[in-house]
């Protein structure tokens, strides 16, 4: 089932800035769509509007062609998973999972069968008679998923489902969610502020900032073709360099990159450079016209090495090399290296060119 959000605005106070302003996007049937943004960007509010837990001041929510804007949350046929689990702590896992069926007056036999199915799906067979407080965080959240799936919702809404878990469990559950989605193929909307989670899990990313949707696209669209400097710096690591257009080139301190024609000469620009798009070479003494940077810090992270450089303009630049490249050059802190930019995304006064 497609979920379309059309021009939704939601204010919590009459005068203050709206939590969500004129937001629109469509979550494709059977895929994972992620609402990604920093805290306070309105992503959770927007998800709650889709769920019916908040009522939008303006705009509509459609499930396929049906306008559900006035349909109460309990009748929308959604499954909702909460960041803080929100399990019923005084009920066993079995009763938690069966709750939606209990509400609908299902028979004991039906409940028993469905609970067994769901606990198998979330790999918690044998935990039916425990209480939530006897489970680990990751297990609790899987109960949360099972409970949300009990009534076969057509849409699954996940509000930072792994946000309350520690890093290791979070990565495990990310894998697990991917498999779960492969088996259920449910239309899923995931809220997260974790860009890795978003890039890895989603078919589509909706980037939000200050209550507005700033870009909607596939992970590679958002990563490789960011529409605003905010998207570029929020999704993935990015170096931001300021400079000025001079003819065919943009001068960025001591570096320069080419720009497409038609850019006004002398325009102020911001260039966004990914750490893996910076090329380094050993300083061989023939560096005329090329920029030299000093290595101020080196951190080895498994297969990659992360370097911090200082350019002659005193701009700091983060560089990522493979361990092989770094070893071949024999780099050390304090070395001077030749710096070049393979790829840069240039923004003129906040507009992409």
């Amino acid at each position, binding site marked *: 089932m497609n979920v379309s959000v059309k021009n939704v605005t939601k204010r919590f106070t009459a005068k203050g800035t709206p939590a969500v302003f004129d937001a629109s996007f469509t979550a494709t049937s059977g895929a994972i769509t992620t609402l990604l943004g920093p805290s306070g960007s309105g992503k959770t509010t927007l998800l709650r509007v889709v769920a019916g837990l908040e009522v939008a001041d303006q705009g509509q929510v459609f499930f396929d062609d049906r306008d559900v804007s006035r349909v109460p*949350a309990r009748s929308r046929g959604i499954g909702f998973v909460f960041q803080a689990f929100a399990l*019923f702590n005084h009920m066993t896992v079995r009763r938690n999972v069966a709750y939606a069926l209990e509400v*609908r007056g299902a028979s004991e036999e039906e409940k028993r069968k469905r609970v067994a199915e769901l606990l198998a799906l979330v790999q918690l067979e044998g935990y039916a008679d425990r209480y939530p407080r006897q489970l680990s965080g990751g297990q609790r959240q899987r109960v949360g998923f099972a409970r949300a799936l*009990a009534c076969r919702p057509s849409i699954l809404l996940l509000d930072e489902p792994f946000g309350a878990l520690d890093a290791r469990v979070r990565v495990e559950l990310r894998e697990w969610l991917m498999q779960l989605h492969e088996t259920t193929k449910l239309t899923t909307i995931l809220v997260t502020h974790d860009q890795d989670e978003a890039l890895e899990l989603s078919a589509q990313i909706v980037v939000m900032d200050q209550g507005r949707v700033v870009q909607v696209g596939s992970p590679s669209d958002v990563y490789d073709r960011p529409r605003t400097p905010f998207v570029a710096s929020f999704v993935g690591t990015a170096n931001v360099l300021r400079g000025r257009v001079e003819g065919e080139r943009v001068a960025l301190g001591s570096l320069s990159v080419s720009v497409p024609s038609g850019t006004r000469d002398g325009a102020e620009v911001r260039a966004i450079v990914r750490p893996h798009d910076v090329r380094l070479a050993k300083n061989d003494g023939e560096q005329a016209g090329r920029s030299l940077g000093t290595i101020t810090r080196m951190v080895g992270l498994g297969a990659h090495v992360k370097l911090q450089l200082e350019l002659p303009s005193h701009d700091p630049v983060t560089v990522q090399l493979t361990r092989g490249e770094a070893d071949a050059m024999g780099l050390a802190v304090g070395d001077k290296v030749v710096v070049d930019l393979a790829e840069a995304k240039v923004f003129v006064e906040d507009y992409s060119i």
Partner: protein
Amino acid sequence: MADAWASAHEATRSADVALAAVPAGGDNRLPPPAMSEPWPVRLLLIAFALGFLGLFVVLPILSVFLEAFGQGLSTYVSRLAQPESLAAIRLTLVTASIAVPLNVVFGVSAAWVVSKYRFPGKSLLVTLIDLPFSVSPVVSGLIYVLMFGRRGVLGPWLEAHGLRIIFATPGIVLATIFVTFPFVAREVLPIMQDQGNDEEEAALTLGAGGWRIFWQVTLPKVKWGILYGVILCNARSMGEFGAVSVVSGHIRGETNTMPLQVEILYNDYDTVGAFALASLLMGLALATLVAKKIIEPRQFRR
């Protein structure tokens, strides 16, 4: 039924654990020995604290029981069983059994409204809940006399319809409700606010209606808070003197609650009778403290 038994059983068991855990938890928070005073100072401070407690709390408690039982158990029973004292006990029980349930309903609904909805006048309501704590009980009693007394606002109408509130049981019940209504609300409100609405929202997305959510989700979350409030509310409604004294009229055998009857017996030089009745109130107080101690650690547990 089996479920209820099992959970009650579990409750007592973990209450034991909780009780045992409390002093240990307290000791963990002691300052390190380096911060401690030299031993003579420590000894002096501890002796002073214990001496004070003994003189002003333990001794009076003991003297109540000593006076009550001083002339033997049979005297105790016979003085306690005199008709006026029995009537006072009955009236106190009736009053508490009306006031406490009403305050549970009021307290829970006030806490619900305050923690779940945004509405104008909310902070005023929260402030007003505390009013009975800050106003003198005598004034609380007077309010009802001014409302329902013969010369009061509603007095003539009530008299014309043959209804008696002041100097009768209804007045005593009303005054008791007034002085005790903050207890349940004050206990339940912070728990509801602290725990947020996540579980209620979860139930909502699973298809549950408001009434079911209240009974199956909200109420179990706050049940220990309610019980705690009920115990405090009950202790106060049985022990209230000031407000009840104003509206009671002191009609012997009819409108005297236990505290009022204690005073009357004492003024009649019936020391054993007064202390026998007082010993019941003291027993209630001690039972309340024990119950409070058991429930307290469970109250804010998630």
